[in-house]
C-alpha cells in the first residue's frame, strides 16, 4: 500500500513538473535575445517541424541545424525588418498525427508567423488543414508528392508551399537523360515499396522511359529496413539491363550498389536526390563509380561551399541534402517577409505566392497556381574518381 501511494505521488509530481516546463516559454532563445519585458514583443516566432527521432532523424536534424544556424546569422545582422527571430523546432517522429499536433501547437500557442518543414510528403499533406484553419503559411522542404500543394481537384492549397522538385519531374529527368543523352534502352528498377518518395520516382521514371521507347526489363521491390538486396539483384542480373535505376536514399544505395557489383552486375547505376552524401562515398566508392544522379545543385558552386564549410565548422557534421533545401526555405521566407513588410501570416502568404529568390539550389520562382518552384533545372551529377562531378543542367520536357 505504501509503495502505491509513493508511486502515485512520484508520478503526479513528475507530470506536474512536466506541465510546468512544458508551458513555460521556450528555452531555445536566440543568442542575443532581448530580456523578457518591453523588448520581448520584438521577437518573432518561426516554427520548424520534422523528424528529430525515428528512422528519418538524420535528415530532420540537418534541417533543424540549418534553420537555426541561418536565423542566428540573420539575428546577428539585425534580424528581419529590425526584429529578432526565434526558431521553435518540434519533433514529429516522422508521424503524420504528431505533425498535426505539433503544427496545432506552433500556430495557436506559439503564434508563429510561418512554419518551415516538414521533410516528408505524408506529414506535409496532413498538416495543410491546420495551416488553413489557422491561416499560417508553411514551406515544405523535401516533400515531393504533387498533392502537397494541390488538392485532389487540382486546386492549389492556399497555405502550402515548397522549395523542392516534385516526384514526376525528377523521375522524368532521370529517364529522359538515360534515354536521350546516355542512349540506354533497357532499364531495371529496384525500389522501396514502403516509401512514398521511392514509389513516386519509380512511377514517373517508368512512364517516361517507356514513353521514349525504352524497355523496363525488371522491376523489383524491397521494404524499408531491408539490408540485403541480393535476391532482387540476382534476378535483375538475369534480365541484363544497361541501366539500373535506384530511387532511394544513400544508405540503401550504398548497400545495394556494393551487392550489385559483388554479384557482377555492371550496368550503369542511376538515382535521384536521395543519393548525395559523404556516407555513400565512404561506403561504396568503387561500386558507384561512373554512376549518375539527379540533383538540385552543383556541389562545386562557391556559394554551396561557403554554406557547407560554415555548417561543418559549427556542427562537425556533413550537410545532407535537406540542409540545402532548408536553406532555401529560409531564404524564401525571409524575402517574402521583407516583401510583405510585415509579420502577419496572411500577408506573408500573399508575398510567398509570387516570391522569387536566388536560392542555393537555383533560382526559386514560386508559381501562384501550384505553389511549386518553377523552372528549376535539375543538375545531373556523375560520380568520377570518388567525387561528385557536375555534368549539365537538364530539364524534362
Amino acid at each position: 500500500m505504501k509503495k502505491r501511494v509513493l508511486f502515485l505521488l512520484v508520478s503526479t509530481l513528475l507530470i506536474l513538473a512536466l506541465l510546468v516546463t512544458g508551458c513555460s516559454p521556450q528555452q531555445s532563445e536566440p543568442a542575443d535575445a532581448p530580456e523578457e519585458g518591453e523588448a520581448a514583443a520584438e521577437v518573432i516566432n518561426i516554427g520548424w517541424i520534422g523528424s528529430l527521432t525515428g528512422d528519418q532523424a538524420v535528415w530532420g536534424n540537418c534541417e533543424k541545424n540549418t534553420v537555426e544556424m541561418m536565423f542566428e546569422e540573420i539575428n546577428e545582422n539585425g534580424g528581419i525588418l529590425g526584429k529578432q527571430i526565434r526558431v521553435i523546432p518540434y519533433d514529429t517522429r516522422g508521424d503524420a498525427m504528431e505533425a498535426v499536433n505539433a503544427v496545432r501547437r506552433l500556430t495557436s500557442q506559439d503564434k508563429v508567423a510561418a512554419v518551415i518543414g516538414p521533410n516528408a510528403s505524408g506529414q506535409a499533406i496532413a498538416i495543410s488543414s491546420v495551416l488553413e484553419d489557422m491561416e499560417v503559411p508553411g514551406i515544405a522542404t523535401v516533400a515531393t508528392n504533387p498533392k502537397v500543394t494541390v488538392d485532389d481537384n487540382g486546386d492549389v492549397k492556399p497555405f502550402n508551399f515548397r522549395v523542392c522538385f516534385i516526384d514526376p519531374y525528377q523521375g522524368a529527368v532521370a529517364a529522359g537523360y538515360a534515354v536521350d543523352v546516355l542512349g540506354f534502352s533497357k532499364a531495371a528498377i529496384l525500389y522501396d515499396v514502403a516509401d512514398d518518395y521511392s514509389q513516386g520516382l519509380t512511377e514517373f521514371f517508368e512512364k517516361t522511359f517507356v514513353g521514349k521507347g525504352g524497355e523496363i526489363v525488371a522491376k523489383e521491390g524491397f521494404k524499408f529496413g531491408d539490408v540485403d538486396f541480393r535476391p532482387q539483384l540476382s534476378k535483375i542480373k538475369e534480365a541484363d539491363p544497361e541501366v539500373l535505376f535506384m530511387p532511394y536514399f544513400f544508405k540503401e544505395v550504398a548497400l545495394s550498389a556494393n551487392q550489385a557489383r559483388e554479384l557482377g552486375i555492371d550496368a550503369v547505376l542511376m538515382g535521384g536526390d536521395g543519393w548525395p552524401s559523404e556516407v555513400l562515398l565512404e561506403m561504396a566508392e568503387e561500386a558507384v563509380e561512373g554512376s549518375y544522379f539527379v540533383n538540385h545543385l552543383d556541389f562545386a558552386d562557391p556559394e554551396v561551399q561557403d554554406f557547407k564549410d560554415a555548417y561543418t565548422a559549427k556542427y562537425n557534421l556533413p550537410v545532407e541534402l535537406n540542409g540545402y533545401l532548408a536553406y532555401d526555405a529560409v531564404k524564401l521566407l525571409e524575402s517574402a517577409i521583407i516583401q510583405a513588410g510585415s509579420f502577419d501570416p496572411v500577408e506573408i502568404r500573399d508575398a510567398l505566392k509570387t516570391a522569387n529568390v536566388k536560392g542555393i539550389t537555383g533560382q526559386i520562382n514560386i508559381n501562384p497556381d501550384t505553389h511549386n518552384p518553377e523552372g528549376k533545372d535539375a543538375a545531373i551529377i556523375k560520380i568520377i574518381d570518388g567525387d561528385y562531378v557536375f555534368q549539365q543542367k537538364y530539364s524534362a520536357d
Partner: protein
Amino acid sequence: MDWYYIQGILILSGINLLAVLGLSLLTGFTGLFSFGHAGFMAVGAYTTAMMTVKLNMPFTLALLVGGLAAATVSLIIGKLTLNLKGDYFCIATLGFGEAIRLILDNVQYFGGARGWPGIPRETGLMNVVVWNVIAVIILVNLIKSRHGRNMQAIREEEMASQIIGINVFKYKMISLAISAAYAGVAGGMLAHYTGFLQPRMFQLIKSTELTIIVIFGGLGSISGSIIGAIVLTSLPEILRTFHQWRLVVYGASVIFIMITRPQGLMGGYEISITNIKKLISHISSLGREKTTVGGDNK
C-alpha cells in the same frame, strides 16, 4: 495553453482511447497480447475512407463499416492463430500487422506507399467524445455480463476455465473481434482527422504504444485505460520542448513503471461511485492495511 491546441491533443487522446479500450478487453480482460492492432486500425481506416470517399456514405455509417471490416479480418486471423500460446500468438499478430502494411504499400488503388490525400475531415472533438462514451458503456456492460466474467476467468486460469465448460476459443474470438472493431473505428476516425492516409502511419510502434497504454493504465481496469490514454497521449506533447530527449524519457518511464508498479496505475481497480465510497471509509479507518475493492491480477 491555447484551446485549439488542447483540442488537438484531446481528439488524438480520444482516437487512441477508442483503440485502447478494445485492446483493454483483449489484453486486460482476456489475457491475450497483440502486436497487430495497428493493422486492424489500418483496415478500419482504409475501409472507412473508401466508404466516405468512393461511395459517399455518411461518416457514422462508414465508421461502423470500418469497424465491421476490421472485426471480420480479425476473425480470420483469430481462427488461424488463437490456439497458439503466449509469444507464438504475439509474433503471429506482429507478422499480421506487418503484412497488412505491406499489402497497403503495394495497392495503388489506395495510393500505395505514397498515401491517400483528400479524405474529408469529419472527426471533431464532439464525435470523438460521443463514440468514446458509447464505447465505454458497451464495454462496461459486456465486462459485467456473464460473457465478461468468462473472459476474465480465461485470463486467470485458462485450463480451469476449459474444464468447467467455458468455450475458451469462442470467447477469445469474441474478445478479439470486439477489440478489432474498436481499433477499426479508431482508425476510421484517425483517417478523417488527418484527412490523409499512408501505410507508414500504422507501423509496429503504433501497436506497441497502444499496448503500453493498456499496461500503464492497469490490466483489467477500464478507468485505468482511460486515464492511461489521456496521460500517455499528452505526455509526448508536454515533452515536446525536449526535442529528441522526449522518447528517452518515455522509454525510461515505461521501464520505471513496470518495475515499480507492474500492475499499472489502477491495477484492476475501477473508479466508480461505490468504490469512491469504499475509499472514503477506507481512509477514515486510516493506516490499516486492508484491500477490499476489486482484486489484483496476480
